[in-house]
């Protein structure tokens, strides 16, 4: 089990309280983007393409704390941009810890080793390090040679200093499931608490518009990756969300589960789509036309999305909101998901000779038969 009991207890009691009070739309994770500035230029990212004067702006610690208190989510994710480029990031993190929020500071770790002495280990603070695969894959994915080695150095130092650390991987079309499984072994050997993963979202502003998987392909890929798990692998995610990625569960998006706040305000409707902004969280919840989003809406911008910020809240709410869901979560935590068909997929997709870089590999292996029948 990768998520500590205290964190699970906090989230479980929060969900139960919300159910008892009859709240229909409540946040689980605040996606708090303190800045858009980044020290990488990844081809799959649509978050950082702004004029310099926008990239120079950042939220103040006071603005961060006000947003956290306004929405009340028990967990706060600090993505960006690169949060470690924020000059007051330590003050922001310490303020969130003081408010007993479980923080995931999402970083590419280029600055992590250097900045670590400024932070204090806490059960509330996790460094979620962006690592898209082994050295070759990661460096190509983030368009920077040497990025993997720097990130791994940061991870090892953070683990050594007693910090909670997870890795966070985004997968695009052409990903080889065998390579990913090997990568899981690699990161668990680094001593991380768990792995976080997600299919890439097709940002309309991302430079590359040809590598985003559709839902059918996502299910096949994740079934091949996540079936027949090794006991050493730990995932810092809801087991029900992983079952959703594997095609075992059908979920609708819960966009209000991970509301996003940044220099523009509260982002409508979610962390990934930008359909406008509101000044207050209340206004976000009350004025967003939620029925226009999610798979069932037919909105093309939501069509291929199976990303954790929309679907993991659905899984968490099911997991802590019903006995059936809770049992599914317990079972999922301890299951290895044995699946002979998925094993065949792995064998069929095993590369002959050295594996190609994920992003310049050919589209999905022709012999990867449908897995979610």
């Amino acid at each position: 089990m990768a998520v500590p009991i205290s964190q699970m207890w906090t989230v479980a009691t929060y969900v139960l309280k919300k159910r008892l009070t009859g709240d229909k739309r409540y946040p689980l994770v605040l996606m708090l983007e303190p800045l858009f500035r980044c020290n990488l230029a990844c081809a799959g990212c649509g978050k950082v393409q702004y004029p310099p004067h926008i990239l120079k702006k950042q939220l103040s610690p006071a603005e961060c704390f006000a947003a956290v208190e306004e929405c009340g989510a028990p967990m706060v994710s600090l993505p960006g941009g690169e949060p470690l480029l924020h000059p007051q990031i330590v003050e922001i993190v310490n303020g969130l810890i003081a408010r007993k929020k479980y923080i995931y500071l999402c970083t590419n770790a280029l600055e992590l080793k250097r900045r670590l002495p400024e932070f204090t280990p806490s059960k509330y603070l996790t460094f979620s390090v962006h690592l898209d695969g082994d050295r070759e894959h990661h460096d190509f994915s983030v368009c920077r040679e040497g990025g993997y080695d720097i990130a791994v150095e940061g991870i090892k130092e953070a683990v050594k200093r007693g910090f909670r650390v997870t890795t966070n991987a985004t997968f695009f079309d052409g990903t080889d499931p065998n390579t990913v499984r090997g990568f899981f072994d690699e990161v668990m050997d680094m001593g991380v608490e768990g792995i976080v993963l997600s299919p890439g979202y097709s940002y309309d502003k991302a430079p590359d518009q040809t590598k985003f998987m559709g839902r059918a392909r996502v299910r096949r890929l994740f079934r091949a990756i996540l079936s027949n798990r090794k006991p050493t692998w730990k995932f810092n995610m809801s087991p029900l969300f992983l079952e959703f990625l594997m095609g075992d569960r059908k979920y609708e998006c819960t966009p209000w589960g991970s509301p996003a706040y940044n220099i523009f305000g509260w982002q409508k409707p979610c962390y990934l789509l930008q359909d406008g902004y509101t000044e207050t969280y209340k206004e976000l919840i009350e004025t967003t036309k939620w029925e226009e989003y999610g798979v069932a809406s037919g909105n093309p911008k939501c069509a291929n999305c199976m990303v954790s910020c929309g679907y993991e809240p659905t899984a968490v709410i099911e997991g802590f909101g019903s006995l059936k869901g809770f049992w599914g979560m317990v079972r999922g935590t301890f299951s290895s998901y044995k699946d002979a068909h998925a094993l065949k997929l792995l064998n069929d997709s095993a590369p002959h000779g050295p594996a190609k870089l994920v992003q310049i590999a050919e589209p999905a292996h022709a012999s990867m038969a449908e897995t979610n029948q």
Partner: protein
Amino acid sequence: MTAEVMKYTLQQVEDLELAPGFEHQKLEGWIPALASEDELRQALEKAFDYRGDVTLTLKSGERIEAFIFNRVSGATLVNSFVQYFTPSATDKRKVSYADIARLEFTGKDRAEGKHWEDWVKKYNEKKGAGEKNIALVPDVLE
């Protein structure tokens, strides 16, 4: 609801192998005609989606260089507005649609220009030349 909504059936969505991706519209340098209310609303919608600065000329004659990050479309032009940041001010500002006389897409489109193929080409060329630490770097914040 946008015009695109309801384009897919649920089954089509579930069966998608590759997400279609979005075609990037080249707007840099464009000066839309704003003769009618519809033209103004459509142009400001594009300005909201644009990842570069625009220049607004108000009916008062004032010119504003702005990054438009939000628009609220009301029943009339008077109660519709855009919100923006300027390069020199720190606060968010807003202006009513009814006060806008001219719109120019003057700033560089920051979502244009870096393509995956360019990275692969650059990588292969530099690798072939024996270079190390090959990377795409973010734009310099001038």
